[in-house]
């Protein structure tokens, strides 16, 4: 038999159910590999001992009806986990231990999942390369000194390096799909309101969504099925009929109408990405799908809109970090001085930059010009999608305008860093679901992804389309374990 850590999530579940593997064996295998992989810097907190204890308890009285029977899973450190430190990649939360569990991680625990650790991410999920984390850069297992994407960079890296059989991330402007694309893995950003935001450290509340990151579409369907529940504790959670996404998964896309937005053919996009897109289009046609040219005319305004809306919401969400009830505190001469020093020393540069942008656009005299304007343009962007969905069932685009870049390469140019999210941000603004799947490599051998965007709450369709693409692409990640001595 191959290594335990080479198995995919659904395969592991199957083997545990057939008693070919125990939860303890599986949990130890992923922990041992994680221990050998410190160089990647994927973990912020390890929960190894506790996890093995839980695996042993599971094996003593296994419940094979669970969807994740004794399966070890490492999660992004943006999810509050009861009694396990939760930092959001920030110094200001370095010693924060939640007294409650996020709904999404609770769902994983309820299905028999075991949390083996908390994964690195950009500070407060603000970043596209995992370089803004207080806990340091994360290495992309694809190649040394390559960024794993962000903000769910620890998640994408740990998954691609097989330190966890599946993981979860959050996506505010591309933070699941872009790192998935950079590491040759699958990432789903569900419809806004599909997964509960309760217990997720808030960044931009009208955009944040949790979602699965996995090796393939099957695993993704299983994880999504577990994560997505209606939750009274999140006032924006939507009570819609959730499917058995894995059971319903099929590659039949005959008659499906797939839109190709012409505005996504941006200037200066590498030829390889265009070719990848063409490859996806060809597969859809060959499998009986119909390709329809569509227009999303306000695409170019999505990023500027995002860089008003997201920082505005962040500036108000992050006002709670004042050094009083939890988190880091710096000494000050008086209360105000204490606040100012705490926030100055506790937040990193990118977070401060975004808080200040947000504060500015919400400040007296500028609200209408910036924030209100952005909300109006957001409506136009959503209308574009509504129009398009009168003609098509889903939309196919590249996931990112480039492959992964080197650590440090874009750090001093915020706007160039922001441009990374050009294909993912409009989807968050419109609240739609989208999945990124690995679809090929560029000439450097780095993975590239394709994105399938769906109608609101129609995750099943995009999973099916992604499943069909995946079957025909047969992508293989060339990861050599270079970081293991």
């Amino acid at each position: 038999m191959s290594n335990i850590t080479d198995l995919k999530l659904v395969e592991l579940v199957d083997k545990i159910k057939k008693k070919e593997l125990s939860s303890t064996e599986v949990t130890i295998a992923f922990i041992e590999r994680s221990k050998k992989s410190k160089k990647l810097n994927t973990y912020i907190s390890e929960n190894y001992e506790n996890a093995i204890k839980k695996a042993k308890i599971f094996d003593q009285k296994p419940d094979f009806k669970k969807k994740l029977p004794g399966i070890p899973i490492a999660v992004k450190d943006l999810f509050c986990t009861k009694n396990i430190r939760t930092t959001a990649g920030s110094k200001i939360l370095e010693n924060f231990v939640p007294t409650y569990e996020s709904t999404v991680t609770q769902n994983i625990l309820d299905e028999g999942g075991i949390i083996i650790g908390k994964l690195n991410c950009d500070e407060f999920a603000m970043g596209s390369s995992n370089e803004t984390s207080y806990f340091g850069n994360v290495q992309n297992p694809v190649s040394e000194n390559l960024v794993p994407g962000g903000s769910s960079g620890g998640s994408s890296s740990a998954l691609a390096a097989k330190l966890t059989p599946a993981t979860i991330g959050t996506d505010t402007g591309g933070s699941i799909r872009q790192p998935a694309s950079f590491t040759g893995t699958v990432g789903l950003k569900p419809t806004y309101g599909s997964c509960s935001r309760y217990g997720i450290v808030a960044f931009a509340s009208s955009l944040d969504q949790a979602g699965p990151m996995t090796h393939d579409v099957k695993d993704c369907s299983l994880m999504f099925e577990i994560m997505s529940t209606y939750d009274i504790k999140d006032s924006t959670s939507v009570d819609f009929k959730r499917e058995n996404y894995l059971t319903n998964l099929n590659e039949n896309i005959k008659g499906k109408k797939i839109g190709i937005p012409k505005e996504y053919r941006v200037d200066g996009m590498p030829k390889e990405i265009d070719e990848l897109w063409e490859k996806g289009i060809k597969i859809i046609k060959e499998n009986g799908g119909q390709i329809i040219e569509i227009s999303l005319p306000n695409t170019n305004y999505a990023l500027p809109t995002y860089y008003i809306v997201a920082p505005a919401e962040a500036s108000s969400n992050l006002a709670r970090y004042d050094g009083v009830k939890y988190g880091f505190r710096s000494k000050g001469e008086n209360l105000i001085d204490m606040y100012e020093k705490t926030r100055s020393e506790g937040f990193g540069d990118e977070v401060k930059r975004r808080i200040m942008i947000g504060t500015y656009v919400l400040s007296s005299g500028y609200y209408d010009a910036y924030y209100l304007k952005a909300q109006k343009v957001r409506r136009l962007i959503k209308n574009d999608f509504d129009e398009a969905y009168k003609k098509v069932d889903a939309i196919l685009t590249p996931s990112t305008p480039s492959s992964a870049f080197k650590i440090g390469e874009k750090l001093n140019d915020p706007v160039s860093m922001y441009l990374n999210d050009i294909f993912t941000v409009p989807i968050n603004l419109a609240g739609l679901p989208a999945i990124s799947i690995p679809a090929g490599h560029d000439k450097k051998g780095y993975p590239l992804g394709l994105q399938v965007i769906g109608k609101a709450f129609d995750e099943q369709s995009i999973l099916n389309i992604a499943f069909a693409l995946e079957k025909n692409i047969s992508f293989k990640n060339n990861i050599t374990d270079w970081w293991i001595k």
Partner: protein
Amino acid sequence: MTIDLKTVKHISKLSRISIDDNKAKKLGKDLNSIFSFIEKLNELDTKNTEPLTSIAETTLKLRKDEIKSENIREDILKNSPDKNKDFFVVPKVVE
């Protein structure tokens, strides 16, 4: 539009984030490049467009006001950077 040093300092005050002059200069530069990118929105006529405040088109549900978690005072206080018995401690605010 350009954001000058005085404005940067004002925003930093509103944000309750202290910054020194060097940092303020660097931040000013970054903010200017970000805002020149944001200005693009002015190309659009939005006179007759309603702002989109929430994507979730649901009415807020009510639930009973009942205690869900009890006896967690100790755990909550454990996260506090400075405490005294059952209280959070802050620098003196009343003379």
